C-alpha cells in the first residue's frame, strides 16, 4: 500500500466517481422500485396493497412456491450430478478429456432458453423423440412441459457451473490426503464421501449459491417450457408487460419479494460458508489414474452420458438450422434458407449484439479493473462500500433489474428507457460482479513491491497503474473479457424488458422467433450465436493455454 499516510490520491477520486455512477444507475433505480412497491396505484400514498394482492391469490403466491420448488430442485440436482462428474474427471483417466472439458464449457455458455426450445423440438408435443417413441413403440414419453422441463433444462445448463467450481477445488486437494485415506481403509465411494466431500463442501456451497441465483432469476426457460408452471420472473414480466396495461407497483412488489428471498439465501450461505471455510493448497495435486474394468466403463458412461445430454440441445438446434422449412414447419431435405431469412430479418440484431455487447464489454472491463484495483490495493471504507455495491446485482435477478431501470429512468431529465444506453447499463451492471472478482484475483497475484518499485522511480500513481500494473494484468484481463463477452451476448432476462425495435439483440430475436413458431429462423440465429460463443471460447483457450474456466 503506497503511502498510507496520505490516503487521498487519484484513486480516491476514481473510487468516488464509480460510487456515484453506481448510486445513479443501480441504487437509485432499485430505490425507486422499492418505493413503488409500497405506493398505492390509485391514491399514490403508502400502502401494502400490492403485497396483500400477491399473498391473497394462489395464482400469484403459487409462483413463489413454483420458483422455490424449481430453484431448490435444480440446486440439489446440479450438486448431485456435478460432484461425481468432477471427481471422476479429476481422479480417472478419461478418454478425450480435453475435448469433453470444452464441450462442458460450451454447453454451459449458451443461453438456457435455447436449451429449452431445443428440448421442446425433441420431446415436446410434436417433438421428434416423442413422435418416434409414439409411432414405433407406442410409448408416451413423459411430459416435458412445466416443472420437469424447467428442471431438466436448468440442471443440464447449470451443472457445469458447479463442476467448474469443483474442478478448481479438487486441484487444491493434495494427493497425500487421498493416500492417507486409503491407507486407513477408505476406498472407492467411501473415500469420496468421507474424505473428498468434506474438503470440497465450501466450494459446493459457493457453487450452489450461484446455481440458486441463476435458477431463481432465469426467465427464458420457464417462459418457453413452463407453460402453466409460472415462476417469479415470468410473473414479474407478465405483470409488467401485461397487455391490459402493466401494473408497475405490483410488478415492483413481486420484485421486492424475489430480492428479499435471494438476499436471505445469500446471507444464509455466507453465514454457513464463513464457518466452514478453510484454504487448501496442494503441493502434489491429485493425478488422474488409469482405472480398469467395470469401474472404468462406468466412469466413462457417466461422463459421456452427461455431456452428451448437456450438449444435445445445442447440437440439435444446429442440425435443425440446416433443415428445409416450409412455412413454419421443417420438411425433408437440407438447405441454407433459414440462414438467409435469418440474416434478412435479424441482420440488425446481429449488428446490435456486436455494438451493444462490445460497448458494454468495454465498460465492464474498464470498471472491473478499476474496482478490482482499489478493493485490493486501497482497502478502506469507501472501497469496501464499492465492493459491496458492485455485488448487489448478484442477488438481483435480471428481470427485476430491468424493471428497476425502467421505473428509474422513465422521466426527464433521466429519460433513458428505449435507448441503447439503458441496455448497455444493464449489461454492464449484471456482468460486473463476476468480472470484478476475476480482476481482483489477478491483482492479488501481482506483488505490491512491483508498484512500489515504480513509485520509488518517480512514477505517479496513475502512471504506475498504466505503465506497470495494467500491462501485467492484461493477459488475465483479456481472458476474463472473453468470458464476459460470451455471457453478455447471451443475456435475455433484462434486455427483453428494455429492448425496442432499434435495440433488438440476437437473443431477443431468437426468443421472439421461437414464440412466433418460426423454428427454422430461430435455429439459424441460435446457431450463429452458438458459433460466436464457440469461437470466442476457442480464442480464450488459445490465449490462456487453459482447459478450464473459473467464473
Amino acid at each position, binding site marked *: 500500500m503506497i503511502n498510507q*499516510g496520505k490516503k487521498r490520491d487519484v484513486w480516491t477520486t476514481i473510487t468516488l466517481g464509480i460510487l456515484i455512477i453506481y448510486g445513479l444507475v443501480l441504487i437509485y433505480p432499485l430505490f425507486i422500485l422499492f418505493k413503488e412497491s409500497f405506493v398505492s396505484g390509485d391514491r399514490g400514498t403508502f400502502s401494502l396493497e400490492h403485497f396483500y394482492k400477491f399473498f391473497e391469490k394462489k395464482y400469484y403466491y403459487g409462483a413463489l412456491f413454483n420458483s422455490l420448488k424449481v430453484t431448490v430442485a435444480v440446486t440439489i440436482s446440479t450438486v448431485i450430478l456435478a460432484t461425481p462428474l468432477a471427481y471422476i474427471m479429476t481422479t480417472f483417466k478419461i478418454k478425450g478429456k480435453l475435448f469433453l472439458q470444452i464441450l462442458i464449457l460450451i454447453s454451459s455458455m449458451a443461453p438456457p432458453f435455447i436449451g429449452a426450445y431445443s428440448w421442446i423440438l425433441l420431446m415436446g408435443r410434436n417433438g421428434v423423440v416423442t413422435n418416434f417413441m409414439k409411432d414405433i413403440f407406442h410409448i408416451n414419453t413423459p411430459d416435458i412441459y412445466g416443472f420437469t422441463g424447467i428442471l431438466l433444462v436448468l440442471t443440464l445448463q447449470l451443472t457445469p457451473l458447479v463442476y467448474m467450481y469443483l474442478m478448481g477445488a479438487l486441484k487444491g486437494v493434495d494427493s497425500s490426503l487421498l493416500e492417507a485415506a486409503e491407507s486407513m481403509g477408505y476406498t472407492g465411494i467411501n473415500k469420496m464421501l468421507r474424505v473428498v466431500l468434506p474438503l470440497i463442501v465450501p466450494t459446493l456451497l459457493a457453487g450452489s449459491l450461484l446455481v440458486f441465483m441463476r435458477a431463481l432469476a432465469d426467465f427464458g426457460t420457464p417462459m418457453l417450457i413452463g407453460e402453466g408452471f409460472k415462476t417469479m420472473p415470468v410473473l414479474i414480466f407478465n405483470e409488467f408487460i401485461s397487455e391490459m396495461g402493466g401494473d408497475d407497483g405490483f410488478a415492483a412488489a413481486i420484485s421486492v419479494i424475489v430480492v428479499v428471498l435471494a438476499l436471505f439465501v445469500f446471507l444464509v450461505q455466507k453465514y454457513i460458508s464463513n464457518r466452514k471455510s478453510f484454504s487448501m493448497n496442494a503441493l502434489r495435486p491429485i493425478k488422474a489414474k488409469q482405472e480398469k474394468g467395470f469401474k472404468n466403463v462406468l466412469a466413462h458412461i457417466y461422463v459421456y452420458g452427461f455431456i452428451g445430454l448437456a450438449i444435445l440441445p445445442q447440437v440439435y438446434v444446429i442440425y435443425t438450422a440446416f433443415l428445409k422449412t416450409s412455412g413454419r414447419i421443417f420438411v425433408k431435405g437440407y438447405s441454407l434458407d433459414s440462414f438467409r431469412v435469418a440474416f434478412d430479418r435479424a441482420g440488425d440484431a446481429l449488428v446490435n449484439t456486436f455494438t451493444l455487447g462490445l460497448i458494454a464489454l468495454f465498460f465492464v472491463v474498464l470498471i472491473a479493473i478499476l474496482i478490482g484495483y482499489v478493493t485490493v490495493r486501497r482497502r478502506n471504507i469507501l472501497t469496501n462500500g464499492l465492493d459491496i455495491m458492485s455485488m448487489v446485482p448478484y442477488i438481483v435477478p435480471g428481470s427485476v433489474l430491468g424493471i428497476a431501470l425502467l421505473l428509474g429512468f422513465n422521466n426527464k431529465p433521466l429519460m433513458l428507457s428505449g435507448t441503447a444506453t439503458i441496455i448497455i447499463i444493464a449489461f454492464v451492471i449484471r456482468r460486473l460482479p463476476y468480472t470484478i472478482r476475476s480482476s481482483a484475483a489477478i491483482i492479488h497475484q501481482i506483488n505490491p513491491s*512491483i508498484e512500489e518499485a515504480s513509485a520509488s522511480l518517480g512514477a505517479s500513481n496513475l502512471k504506475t497503474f498504466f505503465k506497470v500494473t495494467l500491462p501485467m494484468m492484461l493477459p488475465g484481463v483479456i481472458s476474463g473479457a472473453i468470458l464476459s463477452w460470451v455471457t453478455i451476448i447471451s443475456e435475455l432476462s433484462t434486455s427483453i424488458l428494455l429492448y425496442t425495435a432499434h435495440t433488438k439483440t440476437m437473443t431477443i430475436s431468437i426468443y421472439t422467433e421461437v414464440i412466433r413458431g418460426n423454428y427454422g429462423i430461430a435455429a439459424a440465429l441460435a446457431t450463429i450465436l452458438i458459433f460466436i460463443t464457440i469461437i470466442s471460447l476457442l480464442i480464450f483457450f488459445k490465449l490462456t493455454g487453459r482447459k478450464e474456466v473459473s467464473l
Partner: protein
Amino acid sequence: MSIAIHFTDVIKKYGDTTVIPGLSLKIKKGEFFTLLGPSGCGKTTLLRMVAGFNSIEGGEIHFDDKVVNELAPQHRNIGMVFQNYAIFPHMTVKQNVAFGLKNKKLPKDEIEKRVDDILEVVQISQFKDTLPENLSGGQQQRIALARAIVIEPDVLLMDEPLSNLDAKLRVEMREAIKSIQRKVGITTIYVTHDQEEAMAVSDRIAVMKSGEIQQVGTPKEIYQRPENIFVASFIGRTNVLERQINRREDGSYRLHMDPSYHVSIKDIVWSKETNQETMMAKLSVRPEEFIIDDDESGMEGTILTSSFLGMNTHYLVELGDGEHVEIIQESILGDYLPAGTLVKLRIKKEKINVFDHNTERTMLGGRSK
C-alpha cells in the same frame, strides 16, 4: 547528490501496536549504513518509512534539512532494491533500467547513455534486450540495482536484497554491491538479518531489537566492543559467564574466573551508586578469546567434544561448576585434544567484554574502543 538522513524520535504504529517506539539516528552523507537485527525487529518498517511507503506516526525524518514525513515516495528521489527484485516482467532489461529516467523526462540520448553506462557497471550489458524472466536471480538483482542507482537517487534503500540468492552468489553480489556503492557514493541504507553480510559491506551498522537501536558503530566496534549483552550475543558467537568482580586498592579490578584463576583488568566504570567493593558481572568471552594451555593458572575444565574443522578446531568444554563453553583454536599440526582431556583455560583479557549484571550494559570505559 548524496544526502544525510536524520531520524528524530521516529514512531511507527500499526493500529494500536507500536512497532518503533521512538528512534533517533543520524546517517552520514555517502555512508553505507546497515540495519541489522532479528526477524520482526522493525528493519523493513523503518526502511519503508524512509522510502515513504509507510506512514510516520511521530517524530521526523530529515533528508539533509528537509522534513520528508509527508512527502510521497515519488518525490523523495530514492532508489530502492527489493527482496524479491520487483523487476517489471513485461519490460526488457533496458526498459526496466530506463523507467525511472523516463519519468524524469531526460533527453533520449542521455537516457541511452546512462542506461548503457550503468549496465556496464553492474555487468549485464549483454542482456540489454532480453526479458527478465529468462535471467537468473543474481542477474535480476543486478537489474534491480542498476534500475535503482541509474536515477542518481539521494539515497539507496535495500531490503535484504541478497536473501533469495544462494550462498556463493550472495558473497559475490555483496562485493559487487559494495564496490558499486563506493563508486557512486550514494548514501545507502541496507537491511539484513545476516550479520556476516552486514560486517562485510557496511561502513556502520545499527543493531536493532524490538524497534529500538541497541548500538550504532563500525563493524569492528560492534563485534569487539558491544554495548550490551544482546549485541554481544547477536553478533558472532559468544559465551556469557557470570562472575564476581571486585575493586582493588590500586584502582584495578579483579575478575574471579575460578577459585584459583583471577584476572586483573583496567578501565572498568564502577557504577557510582554502588558503594560495594564487589559485584556480579556478565562476561562475554568469544570462543577465540580463550587460550587452552597446560599452564598452572587457568580455569579447570574437561573437554566434552572436539571437532576438527580445517583451519580451526572447535571444543566444547565443561567448567568446574558445570558451565559449558565453546572454544575455537587455530588447528595445530599434531593431534587435537580428545574428549575427556583435562585442560586449563585462560582468557585474553584485553578482548573480553564485561557487562553490568542488572542492566546488561557494558562496564568498559576509557579503554580505546
